[in-house]
């Protein structure tokens, strides 16, 4: 692959997004018991489901982050992370509209004192970056698929 500024920026965004998700996942994976209690704190999900999410979600984030870094199952990782962020965003906004004080807890217990606007800004920023990555991935796939022009 020839070096180009576009590819370089794409790679940097890849690594930043991957680092955010791996960091968030590791923080939550270190204390899944506390995470389960944090999820239960908002009384939205039944306790059993909260426990299941507490054990599963952090690792999903870590593996998807690693997939972005090593470019393995790249598009699958992108779609999972995009879906996760969209679900978090929609749930957070809808909950706020209904008067529920829900801070996403993306970074587990560490982020529980963040304000709603701060959470929203971060989630929107990540979603925008993921959208850029999706676009770059699709554009690259199309470029690879189209035949090279032949010189006459």
């Amino acid at each position: 692959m020839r070096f180009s500024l576009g590819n370089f920026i794409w790679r940097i965004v890849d690594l930043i997004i991957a680092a955010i998700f791996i960091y968030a996942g590791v923080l939550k994976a270190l204390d899944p018991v506390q995470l389960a209690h944090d999820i239960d704190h908002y009384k939205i999900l039944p306790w059993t489901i909260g426990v299941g999410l507490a054990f599963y979600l952090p690792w999903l984030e870590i593996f998807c982050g690693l997939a972005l870094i090593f470019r393995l199952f790249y598009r699958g990782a992108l779609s999972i992370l995009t879906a996760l962020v969209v679900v978090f965003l929609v749930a957070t906004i809808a909950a706020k509209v209904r008067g529920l004080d829900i801070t996403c807890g993306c970074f587990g217990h560490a982020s529980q004192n963040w304000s709603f606007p701060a959470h929203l800004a971060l989630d929107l920023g990540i979603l925008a970056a993921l959208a850029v990555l999706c676009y770059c991935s699709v554009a690259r796939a199309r470029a690879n698929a189209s035949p090279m022009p032949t010189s006459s």
Partner: protein
Amino acid sequence: MKFSLPRQALILAALSLLPGVGQAIYFRDKISWQSPIPPSEMVGADQAREWGDSTIWIDARPDNEFARDHVPGAILLNEDRWNELLPQFLAVWSPGKKVVVYCSAQSCDLAREVAERLRKEAQLPDVFVLEGGWEAWVKKNR
């Protein structure tokens, strides 16, 4: 070998299950799937009875429920009058005693909150929550 997007997502989701299940097994003593109280902090009515005289029963319910009926010999200790009631409980506690806290049924949080305060604030060891609460005790003993 190229996988389609759904297959990639499925593989990643499945891979993530493995460490998740591993952690769930590792932490099985620290967290219960049924209740927010970990198994190591819960005790059944039969087990608590076996401890005999070394058990101190704590009733975490409101005053009027305690007055209506309670485990014989239980001490009232609720958060409504914590500062007033705590010294009365501490007067009967001594090292080696096992404290069993109960409230109404499994879904009530009062016992868990009182037990947590005894562990964190008073730093008492061997503090347990009665599995099934007052109802479970009544079923076994009446």
